[in-house]
């Protein structure tokens, strides 16, 4: 894609609780290039939301950053003061959240909510800011925008409110848009419209997107690259085709297997639940639920093994001395597709 705009290196974040220190983010590194969409996939407790909140400086009071850097154009955001972060949020890095019902101010007309970032960040005068707000309201597909700009959030449907939230996020043309489960609360047909809108706007506004979700269908449609998180770590990352058609980590296999596809006859659930991060296991955190676990998984955390220049997975199965195992049938099916895709590339 383009130049690298964000570089997260070795991030470690703990939460200080009455029960002890919860090691929520355990050495997470990833990057984002200009113009691309990176999907961070994980389930509850994987750390995906904490990761993005740390990018925005929105961590809870009991969070302790134990190590690492978040380099935005070479500058470490973790070293910013709150005042410095305020000028980053909404202007350079914007965020949209899951629940459009609670992310809008119910007492403020939506026109002003969209105009506010322009007034605060770009010092645009109110009348002009409202005019720009109207333009972006039309851009996100709100009909009768001239009338509706004076309405309050409760006068809109869920899908419309999410469009307004997107308008607020994009009005300053941020370099990075973080979307944290933006369509989970929406109906499937509205979801499809919102996702198409985001793709369209991404091109128009030239913004890079970090997309957080647990819905692999949405990832397949939106992402250029994917990072899979489990128990506070990234366990596999690669291009969207590599992750979906040539996955290497048993957790990624488990996720793909537990989603019904058109051909599904049996759903393979991943048994058990994620480990308690108050006392993370010393070896591979997924070992307890991994049908392919080996003795070493209980002893030592696997490093990232290279699958391609763009694809890495942290599983001992990729060690040169590891035994050859047969992945689940669904994964074999996907790998066949991958082999065909690779063959076409060579031609």
């Amino acid at each position, binding site marked *: 894609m383009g130049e690298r705009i964000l570089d997260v290196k070795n991030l470690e974040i703990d939460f200080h609780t009455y029960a002890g220190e919860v090691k929520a983010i355990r050495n997470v590194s990833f990057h984002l290039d200009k113009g691309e969409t990176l999907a961070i996939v994980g389930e509850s407790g994987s750390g995906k939301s904490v990761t993005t909140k740390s990018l925005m400086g929105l961590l809870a009071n009991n969070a302790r950053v134990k190590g690492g850097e978040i380099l935005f154009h070479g500058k470490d955001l973790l070293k910013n003061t709150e005042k410095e972060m305020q000028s980053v949020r909404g202007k350079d890095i914007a965020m949209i959240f899951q629940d459009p019902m609670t992310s809008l101010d119910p007492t403020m007309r939506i026109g002003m909510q969209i105009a506010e970032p322009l007034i605060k960040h770009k010092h645009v005068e109110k009348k002009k800011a409202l005019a720009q707000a109207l333009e972006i309201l039309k851009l996100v597909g709100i009909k009768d925008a001239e009338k509706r700009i004076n309405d309050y959030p409760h006068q809109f449907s869920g899908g419309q409110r999410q469009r307004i939230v997107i308008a607020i996020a994009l009005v300053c043309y941020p370099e990075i848009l973080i979307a944290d489960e933006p369509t989970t609360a929406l*109906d*499937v047909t509205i979801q*499809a419209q919102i996702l198409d809108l985001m793709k369209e706007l991404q091109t128009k506004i030239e913004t890079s997107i970090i997309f957080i979700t647990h819905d*692999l269908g949405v990832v397949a449609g939106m992402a250029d690259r994917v990072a899979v998180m489990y128990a506070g770590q990234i366990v596999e990352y690669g291009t969207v085709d590599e992750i979906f058609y040539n996955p290497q980590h048993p957790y990624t296999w488990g*996720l793909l297997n537990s*989603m019904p596809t058109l051909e599904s006859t049996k*759903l393979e*659930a*991943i048994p058990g*639940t994620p480990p308690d991060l108050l006392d993370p296991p010393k070896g591979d955190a997924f070992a307890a639920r991994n049908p392919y676990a080996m003795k070493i998984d209980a002893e030592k955390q696997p490093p990232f093994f290279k699958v391609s220049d763009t694809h890495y997975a942290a599983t001992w199965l990729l060690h040169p001395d590891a035994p050859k195992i047969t992945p689940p049938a669904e994964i074999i099916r996907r790998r066949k597709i991958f082999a065909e895709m690779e063959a076409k590339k060579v031609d």
Partner: protein
Amino acid sequence: MPEQAKKILEVKHLKQYFGVGKPDMVKAVDDVTFDIYEGETFGLVGESGSGKTTTGRSIIHLYDPTDGQIIFNGKDVSKLHTKADRLSFAREMQMIFQDPYASLNPRMTIEDIIAEGLDIHHLVKNKEERRARVEELLETVGLNKDHASRYPHEFSGGQRQRIGIARALAVEPKFIIADEPISALDVSIQAQVVNLLKDLQKERGLTYLFVAHDLSMVKYISDRIGVMHYGRLLEVGPADDVYFKPLHDYTASLISAVPVPDPEFERNRKQIEYDPSIEEDKEGRPRKLHEITPNHFVRCAEDEIEMYKAKAAAYEKK
């Protein structure tokens, strides 16, 4: 299956209107008719506001239907008059709710939550028997005996949903309405709960009405599917037929909007736009469910039947 199997539930012209007589009356369920056969899973899908949840709640009598009949095991249960009637109905039909955080009383222990039905119906003689039944149920749903003395807040969403299932099973019902039982759960936990429901169905001969908006999951678990929109049932048929050979435009548009974990498919997917005005008829022609191919019904006017039959035939040629 439908010909040999017995009908356990018949819903006839069910209407559930809220705010009747007021200007903002909502016709949540507007003349819905369908049957459910013993031992099957009937999936009821639709988006928010379609009336699917209200339909489920009307069937189990959380609301008194505005009009229509609900015939359960041959008895008309639309109007339950005596306490004995209500009790016997409650034993045979149970519900699993959507929100695992709101559907368990936070001030009751797990044992009390699961045993409440046993207590009401006097199904156990003493404390020991009660405890034994609860422990058995906990193990059935994949939880631990020692969970019985704990409180809901100590459990995850998936575990709470299992407790809800144990509670529903306690009185040994024949029919369970599962109202979006998995939407609040993580993907891998959804698969666990769905597999559990399927296993229980096989072991105990249960019949399910599975209400959900996740089409892929509904297709996976259901034998037959009904599609609702704006309070009306637009299409009913075997799961594979409805999913792969949809007849109604709305069904087709719904299916086209479902994201699939397959990047190549997603790159080529085109969402089909739906025009809801086709459901209303300017000439006022009556619309009801007509059978187009065996067991596959679509809501249409009489003179549209030929058009739908041609549509169904076109699928066969492909």
